[in-house]
């Protein structure tokens, strides 16, 4: 598949936003349980502004994917069957919950209300991860995507990114929380590494179910396309081929593995040891770059069976 940049930005930005919200709520929940001291109200209310900014930016990016953005409201119609439709509904509802949570902290301070609102927000954030992941995982013939690992990785990578941002935010706003937040971030990031590695290993061994034989229904083992029916390009030759070399793909793969996991983890350790939010912010930005590459690779790795019909121009 050809990577759709608007979708790459959408999924990485909202993933970080959702993860950050889960991190904020974990901070409140732990304090409520008495595990650590309650961070300042600003940690939550301004944190929610950050969450909303990330989600808003993601939402904005998603509009660039549409041919007819002015009709975007229509996309909420088919929630009974379409994961895309479900995502379109859950995203603004989650944004509303995050806004309410932040506002409640700002106006009333931590209490039962924020605990309830935040709990609902976390449930919605998790649901949103499922919706986003299922958009890809529900297509059976995109075999690279058709696995629970897709949903798990959207969840874990989004949480890793959001928790890292949450740790940065803690370093600036709630230093008492820093070490715990850093430990949680490291845990989530390592879990994401395991699952993303599992997905890579799975996809490396995948054998395509469709072949040119099943595509045209001729059983002979040697079939070569001689003409695809036109000389110039078409939607089918543009949107389903990435046109990058194998070497470039390998480079991006190792690049994102490095940028998403070991480098930010090293910076995370350094940043929390020094209690320096700029170092942690650098870790977040570096990892975000890596996540862009990860999503790019996610698209490029998927081999669409329609490509079997477009193997030779003429």
């Amino acid at each position, binding site marked *: 598949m050809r990577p759709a940049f608007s979708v790459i930005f959408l999924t990485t930005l909202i993933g970080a936003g959702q993860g950050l919200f889960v991190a904020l709520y974990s901070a409140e929940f732990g304090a409520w349980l008495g595990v650590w001291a309650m961070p300042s109200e600003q940690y939550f209310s301004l944190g929610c502004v950050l969450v909303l900014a990330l989600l808003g930016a993601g939402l904005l990016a998603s509009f660039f994917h549409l041919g007819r953005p002015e009709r975007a409201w229509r*996309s909420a119609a088919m929630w009974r069957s*379409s994961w895309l439709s479900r995502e379109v509904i859950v995203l603004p509802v989650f944004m509303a919950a995050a806004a309410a949570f932040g506002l409640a902290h700002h106006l009333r301070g931590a209490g039962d209300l924020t605990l309830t609102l935040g709990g609902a927000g976390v449930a919605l954030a998790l649901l949103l991860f499922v919706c986003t992941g299922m958009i890809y995982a529900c297509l059976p013939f995109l075999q690279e995507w058709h696995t629970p690992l897709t949903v798990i990785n959207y969840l874990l990578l989004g949480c890793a990114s959001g928790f890292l941002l949450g740790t940065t935010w803690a370093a600036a706003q709630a230093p008492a929380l820093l070490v715990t937040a850093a430990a949680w971030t490291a845990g989530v990031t390592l879990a994401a590494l395991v699952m993303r590695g599992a997905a890579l290993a799975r996809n490396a061994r995948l054998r395509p179910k469709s072949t040119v034989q*099943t595509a045209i229904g001729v059983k002979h083992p*040697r079939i070569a396309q001689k003409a*695809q*029916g036109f000389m110039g390009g078409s*939607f089918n030759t543009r949107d389903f081929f990435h046109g990058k070399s194998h070497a470039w793909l390998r480079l991006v793969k190792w690049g994102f593995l490095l940028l998403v996991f070991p480098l930010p983890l090293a910076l995370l350790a350094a940043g929390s040891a020094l209690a320096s939010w700029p170092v942690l912010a650098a870790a977040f930005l570096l990892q975000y770059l890596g996540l862009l590459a990860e999503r790019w690779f996610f698209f490029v790795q998927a081999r669409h*069976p329609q490509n079997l019909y477009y193997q030779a121009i003429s």
Partner: protein
Amino acid sequence: MSKQLALVIDLNVCVGCHACVTSCKEWNTSGEAGFLSDDNPYGRDPTGTFFNRVQTFEVGEFPNTQTVHFPKSCLHCEDPPCVPVCPTGASYKRAEDGIVLVDYDKCIGCKYCAWACPYGAREIDEHQKVMKKCTLCVDRIYDESLPPAERKPACVMACPTSARLFGDVHDPESVVSQAIRDSGGYALMPEWGTHPANHYLPRRKTEITLHRDELERVDNPLKIDGLLPKPDVRAPSLDDSTSW
């Protein structure tokens, strides 16, 4: 059982002339639903939106090869994966005749349905920014102002070798169902469970079987046919003037 209109394409007959492609484009770019965009039609890299393409495959190894011309359009799947994914409901399958259609007024051009079609049958219109695909000429086949014989998709009308059959595959007596039954009709990529309504008839060996009764008219109704003349070997075989 409900109706399921479909095409059956005979690969044994298709000569790859692209008449169906041009006829489809001509009909569907002139319809009520608006034009099918083209860019650089006379330039270096012409590109455009088509509902139907004819591709060519070579099967086997030289010199034992066969050329297979393969027309490809939306197969109007009985279980179309492109429909449930559409967030707007613009993509739908008609209950009354099984045609899969896109409502161009609802489509937001998100391309999700094109990702969800394993056959690459959908193409986005680069200027109207909505998804397009074969409609089985839904604006022709029910048009009462056309003579009944012409209420067929434009591609079927155009095919010079009658490689394209059109009809209801749920009606066991229809020409398409008979062709599927009698000539080994098959579906593309059956592995995905899409149950395409369109079927293809395979290439076959063309043989002539001659029976004795076809060489001599044994049923000779008027008893006029006699035995073939069998002259003696010594009898002159040339005419009188030269055989002296």
